[in-house]
């Protein structure tokens, strides 16, 4: 096997490049981490402390950021006064529900598309992904009309259905690649062992598990972070965290402390999820790309 190290030769240009790389990464790190840091710290400050800023150019004043009495009041208010436990639950149910449905049906559809030849297969496959080509906003109005007619607006099942509509085609498209990579012979062996087709499908599921797991997370992320569907389809009865957070911005009173706390509540679970399945995510998503 070839070494995966990149061969590098020392030269002045490369030195400069190395310095520039480090510099760029440092700036990039600050750029991405600072807002999260500010959000996290501010959620524990009361409003006055949150707006205490050092003067411009006063680098020693940076300590001002850390000079505060930690308070959990914003979190307590969120869950006591603003019903955030309900919204958190809604978010979890909507995102997990749609992710599970998408992956279950997606893997079965992807398996069929991967294994069985039939007329019009390519067209069908293209049609499936083409449903994702229109921007969500474009289909929002008709979708709303349909959902209202079906009495799904403002309900969790409605929201789950809406997310599934958008996750499922993507799931089929991606998961097909994973199934294409599994040799036919394993299922054939399973069928000779006494499996029917569905059992044979189940017998190769462990082989695509990393891919399915990674995709499950992507589906959860899509639904968790979604604002548009949640605010229109889910409005009222199925309010999720992003929508609830937005409602903390009121014309006469922007509740910064609560907004920051809500931001933390929304971000943390996904961050932990990301850390938890980081390795899976990389192997899973690159698995389909390389044929054996």
């Amino acid at each position, binding site marked *: 096997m070839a070494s995966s190290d990149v061969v590098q030769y020392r030269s002045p240009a490369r030195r400069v490049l190395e310095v520039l790389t480090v510099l760029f990464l440092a700036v990039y790190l600050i750029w991405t981490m600072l807002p999260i840091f500010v959000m996290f710290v501010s959620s524990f400050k009361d409003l006055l402390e949150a707006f205490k800023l050092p003067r411009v150019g006063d680098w020693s004043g940076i300590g001002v950021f850390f000079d505060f009495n930690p308070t959990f009041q914003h979190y307590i208010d969120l869950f006591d006064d603003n019903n955030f436990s309900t919204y958190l639950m809604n978010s979890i149910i909507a995102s997990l529900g749609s992710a599970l449905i998408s992956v279950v049906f997606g893997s079965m559809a992807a398996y069929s598309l991967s294994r069985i030849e039939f007329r019009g297969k390519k067209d069908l496959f293209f049609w499936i992904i083409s449903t994702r080509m229109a921007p969500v906003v474009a289909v929002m109005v008709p979708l709303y009309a349909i959902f209202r007619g079906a009495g799904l607006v403002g309900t969790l099942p409605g929201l789950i259905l809406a997310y599934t509509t958008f996750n499922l085609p993507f799931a089929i498209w991606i998961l097909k690649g994973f199934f294409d990579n599994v040799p036919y*012979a394993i299922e*054939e*062996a399973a*069928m*000779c*062992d*006494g499996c029917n087709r569905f059992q044979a499908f189940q017998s190769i599921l*462990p*082989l695509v598990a990393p891919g399915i797991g990674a995709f499950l997370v992507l589906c959860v992320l899509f639904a968790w972070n979604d604002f548009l569907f949640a605010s229109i389809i889910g409005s009222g009865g199925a309010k999720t965290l992003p929508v609830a957070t937005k409602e903390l911005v009121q014309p006469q009173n922007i509740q910064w402390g609560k907004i920051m706390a809500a931001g933390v509540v929304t971000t943390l679970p996904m961050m932990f999820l990301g850390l938890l399945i980081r390795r899976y995510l990389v192997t899973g998503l690159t698995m389909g790309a390389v044929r054996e």
Partner: protein
Amino acid sequence: MASVSIKNVWKLYGKTEAVRDLNLECRDGEFLCVLGPSGCGKSSTLRMLAGLEHISAGDIHFGDVRVNDLPPKDRDIAMVFENYALYPHKSVYDNIANSLRLRGMDKAAIDQKVKKAAGMLEIEALMDRRPGELSGGQKQRTAIGRAIVREPALFLFDEPIAHLDAKLRAHMRGELKLMQRELGTTMIYVTHDQLEALSMADRIAVMHEGVLQQFGTPDEIYRHPVNEWVGGFIGEPPMNFLDCELAEENGRMLLRHPNFTGELTTGQAALIKDKAQNGAVRLGVRPDEISIKAASVDGAAKGRVLVTEPLGGDMLVDVTLGDTKILVKTKPDYKADMGDDCYLTFDTERWHVFAGDTGLAYF
């Protein structure tokens, strides 16, 4: 136990004819090899037997049961695949036990059967490993274990030892044959290696370009190939072919080649007389049915030595006879340099004559 009969079976992939009008009968308990080069339709045949491939036309019966429309799980077969096709995420034990679990057998019985199969294949020590941690030979044993533990009516083996190294392959040939004899289960074994077929099979079906060429015992196929293609395919090193003219002179049948003239035996002459008129034929002689001498012998064909290839106990000599290159198998005490003249005599009892146009054997 089951006998297998394949009647007028065709396999078409679009317009490609992979198997053409195949007829085969395999007796109960027989070891049948389907032999042919890659792309000859042997694997398609096996896959149709397994139920993994749709039968385009014709019928396959196991015993009295027509199996065309039965899924693999209902055919009572066990298959070993060329690339083993083990479940990568399961241990050796679970791989072997899988089919029994699917049948809902109880745990103790499964354990007993798996251990027995493992003992037979000498893989008891590997039971907890996954296929990724096994060598090729061990994988292959596991795959065979998975097949035999089911005690099926029919074994289907698709080049199971093709990917092993030469030494292990030679060892496995004997083991597989012994295993089949002990179990007494009907076996259909697909291979491209004529040595495997000759050494293991009770009968061999030789296929070429989707057509069954010859079906018979290894001895029949080796000694009496039905056509030039089978003659050339079976045997290592392969049979030599020479373009000759068949001529009748004073009641004797003669083979004329620019370098020699050979006479057919009376038996051979009788076989050929009614079928072939004077004209072009192909003479087929195996390398070990030619004797080579440095000194001139009466009636011998004069050739020129190209190279000698000592093989330890034997030696191959490349000889040009006119513009044809042929191989002669002799003993290493024959000494010759490149360009030396040599004199070849053929074993006339065992040579073969094929029709020049159709390639069909006269004898």
